[in-house]
């Protein structure tokens, strides 16, 4: 199946006020923050638990430990084998998932409401009592190592890893999410147990629930999850991101396309410039078909299938990144056109027409952002994890609406400096 446009998942979650969404919030005795939306339209429940236990909490000598801890959690608990766990969820018709990035480690459960008590009980066991079996660990280490070696042969992974290293150097955001071949080889199950005890405590973590469950039961679930977690966790802060040296790196590769990664460490989740930068980026390269980058590089020149830009706000400064792929003979002109487009945008800002179109899209498109339990779950999850205020949704539309052309220009000129951009090109001829 071929889709007309590669939809780059914007890692900004945009929310606008929506009257129908009533969010409940509380903190458990053990310090876990909970967001909850009660909704009985469908006989099902979605829940997710998030820990501050992403790859940014790794030491460079044991890079990959955080990822392996996340991965091993479902592979055996409380004496139940990995196979039995999977089969027990399956016979309940429940679906589980896990997710992992630099900041967080998360686990989710989707269940029919009639099976929610049984499914939740099993989910709790998984979260509370991982076996971290050494034999399974050895097998999984081998899978990680092989997969890392494979990544090192593919242009996208090569480029993305080199780009993060260029932006973050020795900051933990520069560590590869899944570690490297040498560090993975050194992981032992005692290290997993220690990491779990240090980073999987209730205090600082969050839980979200959406669906067919009463508030009373939801409160019970959240306190049960909290109670079984390690109690003496570390409260480690991530270091601040320093301004990196500019890197200009070209990595040869026999692929037919060259892959460009271009940008700098930009904003945090709580950044004051969030709104002008976000609305501005929609116009520059976040708005899919209608962005300037797509217009110039794809529509007018036919250089690429996909070109995009995004800010990825994280706990500390996440990347601003521009990317494209094009046949290697034309990477030069394509890259020049990207630079020219960005420069024009920073210098002159958007037009009033562009700004209006951007606001119309964000405000008018709001209902689609929360039109399913799954989508609501992921927004709540982000809000709870990054300590967003509860009225974030209600005030969002006003904040987008308040952004002016001048705000965007001012914020881009102050925050987005092209002479501080690094780039990595994989596959240049």
């Amino acid at each position, binding site marked *: 199946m071929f889709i007309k446009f590669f939809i780059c998942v914007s890692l900004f979650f945009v929310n606008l006020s929506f009257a129908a969404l009533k969010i409940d919030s509380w903190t458990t005795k053990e310090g876990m923050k909970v967001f909850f939306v009660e909704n009985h339209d469908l006989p*099902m429940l979605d829940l997710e638990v998030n820990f501050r236990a992403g790859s940014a909490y790794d030491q460079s000598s044991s890079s990959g430990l955080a990822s392996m801890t996340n991965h091993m959690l479902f592979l055996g608990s409380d004496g139940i084998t990995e196979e039995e766990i999977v*089969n027990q969820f399956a016979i309940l018709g429940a679906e589980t998932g896990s997710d992992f990035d630099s900041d967080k480690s998360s686990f989710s459960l989707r269940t029919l409401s009639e099976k929610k008590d049984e499914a939740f009980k099993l989910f709790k066991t998984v979260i509370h009592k991982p076996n971290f079996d050494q034999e399974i660990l050895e097998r999984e280490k081998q899978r990680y190592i092989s997969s890392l070696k494979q990544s090192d042969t593919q242009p996208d992974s090569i480029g993305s890893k080199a780009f993060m290293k260029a932006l973050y150097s020795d900051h933990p955001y520069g560590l590869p999410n899944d570690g490297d071949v040498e560090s993975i080889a050194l992981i032992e199950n005692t290290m997993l147990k220690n990491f779990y005890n240090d980073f999987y405590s209730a205090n600082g973590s969050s839980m979200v629930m959406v669906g067919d469950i009463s508030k009373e039961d939801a409160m019970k679930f959240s306190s049960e999850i909290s109670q079984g977690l390690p109690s003496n966790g570390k409260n480690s802060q991530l270091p601040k991101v320093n301004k990196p040296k500019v890197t200009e790196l070209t990595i040869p590769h026999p692929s037919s396309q060259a892959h460009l990664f271009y940008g700098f460490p930009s904003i945090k989740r709580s950044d004051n410039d969030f709104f002008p930068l976000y609305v501005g980026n929609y116009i520059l390269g976040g*708005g899919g078909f209608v962005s300037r980058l797509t217009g110039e590089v794809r529509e007018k020149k036919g250089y690429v299938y996909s070109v995009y830009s995004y800010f990825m706000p994280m706990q500390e400064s996440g990347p601003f990144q521009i990317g494209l792929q094009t046949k290697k003979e034309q990477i030069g002109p394509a890259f020049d056109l990207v630079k020219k487009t960005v420069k024009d945008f920073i210098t002159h800002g958007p037009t009033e027409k562009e700004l209006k179109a951007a606001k119309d899209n964000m405000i008018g498109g709001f209902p689609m952002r929360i039109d399913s339990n799954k989508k609501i779950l992921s927004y709540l999850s982000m809000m709870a994890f990054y300590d967003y205020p509860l009225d974030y949704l209600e005030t969002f539309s006003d904040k987008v609406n308040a952004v002016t052309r001048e705000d965007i220009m001012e914020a881009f000129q102050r925050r987005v400096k092209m002479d501080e951009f690094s780039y990595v090109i994989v596959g240049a001829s």
Partner: protein
Amino acid sequence: MIVFFRKLIYFLFFLPTLLFAQVHQKTLDNGLKIFVKEDHRSPVVVSQVWYRAGSIDEVNGKTGVAHVLEHMMFKGTKTTKPGQFSEVIAAAGGRENAFTGADYTAYFQTLEKSKLPIAMKMESDRMQNLLIKKEEFAKEINVVMEERRWRTDDKPTSQVNELMQSLAFVSHPYGRPIVGWMNDLENMSHEDALEWYENWYSPNNAILVVAGDVKPEEIFALAEKYYGPIPSKTIKERKPQIEAEQMGVRRAEVKAPSKLSYLQMAYKVPALDKDLTKNSTDVYALEVLAGILSNTSASRLNQSLVNDQGLALGAGASYAMITRGGMSLFEFYATPSEGASVIDVEDAIKKEVEKIIQSGVTDDELNRIKTSVIASKVYQQDSVFYQAMQIGQLETIGYPYTLMDSYVENVKKVTSAQIQAVASKYFVDERLTVVTLDPQPVDPNSKPKGKPHVH
């Protein structure tokens, strides 16, 4: 690793069904079939137009034209400029895109419900008034070639899959890549795209599916207003293009930069007959077998090859039960562990099949698959888009949307003996094609294969 197309079909059928009681249906005088599914949870609507025209309808020398036309559908009509479609939908707060498969091409918009008329107006406009300008085509064909490079040429497992399809299907059009061969793209003209549009884009070769916070009568009235005046066309005859009989196992390999090898095996099997009164025992048994082999990480293939034997880093199976082309593949794929060969893994997969032929499957395995199908029926109702997608896909391919109801019942009836029977009937060398990846070191000095592209 699964290509998206296969995954999608598989997804449709392994996580199937919503309750179809509320689907409303009408056919306009010009032949456009309309389906409306109400879902009032949010003030949102999805509108999808599906054309019964996909890569299966292409001819040699013009492969990829279905997908190229899909791109050109965003390049303006008699009254709109290139890109205007996307601008208008975006300014209405909408999201939109399109996709091309072997069996169909579809266009969709998701909007706040009051904005639906905007989408209908523009979608109906490009059903009849598309302009394919030479200079726009010249740029867009380059975009499509970049898409091919990105999806296929530089992805070793995609190359394996492309070769697999073309080796398994020698005379059937499923052998041709949906994106098209590079040389065909290089030689395609705007007239080729226009010819495709004129041949296949008409209301009597399309269906409209609308799902969300809407009332059927309002949708029928809107559709009458916007799509009603479009004249129907005579759709040309489609040749059956039945695959010639395979006489023995077919094998090939791909060399590409990679650390790990990869194995794909496919057995030719039937798809569900369009006549639902015909016996479908084999098809449902194959469907459940695919689930028992690879629905979860504890299913047979992963449990045995990855968890127990450590022979593979990943292993799975898939089966596309519904196809317009009348036939299908039951596929196995695996990434051998370092130190294991593709031959070891092929043998191990065949041993798993043999075990099933000899001893059948357990009641627990059957029950887990059946439970998963029933639970999925609830979960799917969480996505308005997916509800529309199921109706559109089934109806375009040639099945009634009500198939989803009988699907669950038929899955529930499958027995271990039926699974044993299909495994021994279809998993034989005379139906088998095997393609493997022979990994090559990354040599930065090697040039991409093929002639340099001159533009």
